């Protein structure tokens, strides 16, 4: 029994932290708010070169052949950096779904291109109204009537739907599916793709929440009122202690869900719904307290806090809100 990561997995996390600190500082995230496409091909290429993008793709297709347990800390780091690029959709969902449920032709066509950073993949699953980054995606993994399709960009149309998070780009999509786009996997492949989406988003939320808490702790230590740091007031301290509790423990949930997906445990879907509902609520708590403890400065466009406040708000709802995932848990709890 060992509920921890290996030395290599921690090294990957550290490498990701350094990489994002250099390549994706808040100024970059802000620049993406104002950018026409909101995406940086240079950053994506660099992420592919480090192996991040192809992490879940087998080595024979040019990836690293790793699994969700390897990926989860990288996703947390992406959240801490508020990375705009579609790492969740491409690396955490579409690539492993193609690996498990794609036809040999789909795999041979897409996997090496994704691993090399030449193709971006996005997803639209479980009746979700939007797909993120469909404007730059080369392939859309789409769930239709319980079946998965890999739809190339010539076969779908994307209409931008501006998001409250300016660095996120979401789209309604009209896709033309057919026998030639169908993937090989059945309904469980679609269910698993959705589980991957919810889990990966929960992992990113863990990073977002962590960052919100870190920024807030630093701020309240410095900011003085009534002749002492505001972080010495118990009302502030207790809020942040409560936040730490849920944010820290939510990580145990997303780690376990990573393990449950990677090892195909029987409780995979429960583990995912536990993780997504709990991590969404944990981030919501961090979101509330972060702005409150910053006071007026946190309410300004100029302060970086809102880059994470808004990412968090968007991701809380993405791939199933806390309430939706609890409804899923309840139907199992009250099944018999």
């Amino acid at each position, binding site marked *: 029994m060992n509920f921890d990561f290996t030395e290599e997995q921690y090294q990957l996390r550290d490498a990701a932290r350094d990489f994002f600190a250099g390549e994706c500082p808040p100024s970059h995230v802000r620049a993406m708010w104002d950018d026409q496409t909101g995406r940086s091909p240079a950053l994506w290429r660099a992420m592919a070169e480090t192996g991040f993008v192809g992490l879940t793709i087998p080595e024979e297709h040019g990836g690293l052949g790793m699994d969700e347990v390897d990926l989860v800390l990288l996703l947390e780091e992406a959240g801490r950096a508020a990375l705009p690029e579609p790492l969740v959709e491409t690396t955490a969902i579409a690539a492993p779904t193609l690996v498990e449920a794609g036809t040999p032709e789909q795999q041979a066509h897409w996997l090496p291109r994704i691993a090399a950073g030449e193709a971006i993949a996005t997803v639209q699953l479980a009746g979700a109204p939007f797909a993120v980054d469909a404007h730059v995606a080369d392939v859309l993994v789409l769930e239709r009537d319980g079946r998965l399709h890999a739809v190339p960009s010539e076969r779908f149309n994307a209409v931008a739907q501006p998001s409250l998070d300016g660095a996120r780009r979401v789209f309604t999509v009209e896709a033309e599916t057919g026998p030639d786009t169908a993937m090989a996997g059945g309904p469980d492949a679609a269910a698993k793709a959705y589980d991957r989406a919810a889990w990966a988003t929960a992992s990113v939320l863990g990073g977002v929440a962590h960052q919100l808490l870190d920024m807030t702790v630093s701020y309240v230590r410095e900011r003085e009122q009534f002749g002492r740091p505001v972080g010495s007031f118990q009302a502030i301290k207790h809020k942040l202690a409560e936040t730490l509790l849920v944010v820290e423990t939510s990580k145990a949930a997303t780690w376990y869900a990573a393990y449950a997906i990677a090892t195909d445990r029987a409780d995979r879907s429960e583990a995912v719904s536990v993780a997504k509902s709990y991590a969404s609520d944990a981030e919501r708590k961090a979101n509330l307290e972060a702005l409150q403890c910053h006071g007026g400065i946190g309410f300004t466009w100029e302060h970086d806090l809102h880059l994470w406040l808004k990412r968090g708000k968007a991701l809380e709802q993405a791939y199933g809100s806390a309430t939706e995932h609890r409804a899923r*848990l309840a139907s199992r*709890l009250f099944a018999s």
Partner: protein
Amino acid sequence: MDLNLTDEQQAFRDEVRAWLQANVPGEPLPPTSTPEGFAAHRDWERRLYDAGYAAISWPRAYGGRDADLLTQAIFQEEYTRANAPARINVLGLGLAGPTLMVYGSDEQKQRWLPGILSCEDIWCQGFSEPDAGSDLASLRTSALREGDEFVVNGQKTWTSSGRFADWMFALVRTDRDAPKHKGISFLMIPMDSPGIEVRPIVQINSDAGFAEVFLTDVRVAADNLVGELNDGWRIAMTTLGFERGTGLGSHVRFSKDLEELVALVKAVGADHDPLVRDRVARLYAETEVYRHNMYRTLTRLAGGKPIGPEASLNKLFWSEMEVRIFETGMEVMGPYAELTSKADAAVDKDTWHKRYWYARAACIYAGTTEIQKNIVSERVLGLPKEPRA
């Protein structure tokens, strides 16, 4: 990451499970707050002892099994799953014993550890006083040296098991003039000493689970002092560290509580109410997160890293979660929640009441919720300290 048990761990789990199946009494024992109940629990402890299960975490040299943390957790999981009786000497086995192993002299260890292990001696914790709760270091019960004895005067309160205990590990003031943390000592007091008067206190759950203990000119042998004179605060911090420890295996209890909640919801026909379903699912998620986090902590501790102030996070988590579980149960019962088992319309045989109130106590004992939040914010987050008198 690998959550499977080794063959050895699996074998241990099977062994414990089989033993419990063969030995756990079919009917629950009478409550420990009554003399008969206490005696029945003592007999049960004796059986655990004879089978070598009294304190598997203790070193072999002291009669334990040197079990590592994971093995302890496996034992605790099985124990809880089997609905085995409540342990009555947790303060001896979990606090007094381990503290003695760190600070006791060889002579003291030989004198006290065997009795703790066999449950011949039940121990209670004499820390809190009427005017010293969260601010424990302001305690006033005094012990003055006279020849080879201490003369102890004062009052302890909220002493769990005080009514039945044979020994008390107590904090006493041995230097009135020193700064408050520096004048405290750790003293073992026989509860049958002349000058001790124990008055049971009835708790809000109607059990006489704790007591107040009056000490008037109680003469205690000087060699009952543990560690150095006036070094008791440091020793007490070690003891409290054991107390706030990981609660190994307690996740099984919460998972069971949750199962009972689901059964209650169905029994009262609330299982189609979307609000109730949402609340129960939230609690389920919390118990699961608690379980995963427990394994995370266990792995860290097994790797030799200290639990440190994160123990406070753990205590906050479980104490508040348990309240929410029982709170939901009370609410689900609606108007029936107020009925006791004496009411013929009752849907519950008092178990929810009793456990609900007891869960509330967990936010008070072993460091209140507010004190835990102070510890977390200061020692984990590094926020500035409270101004203190």
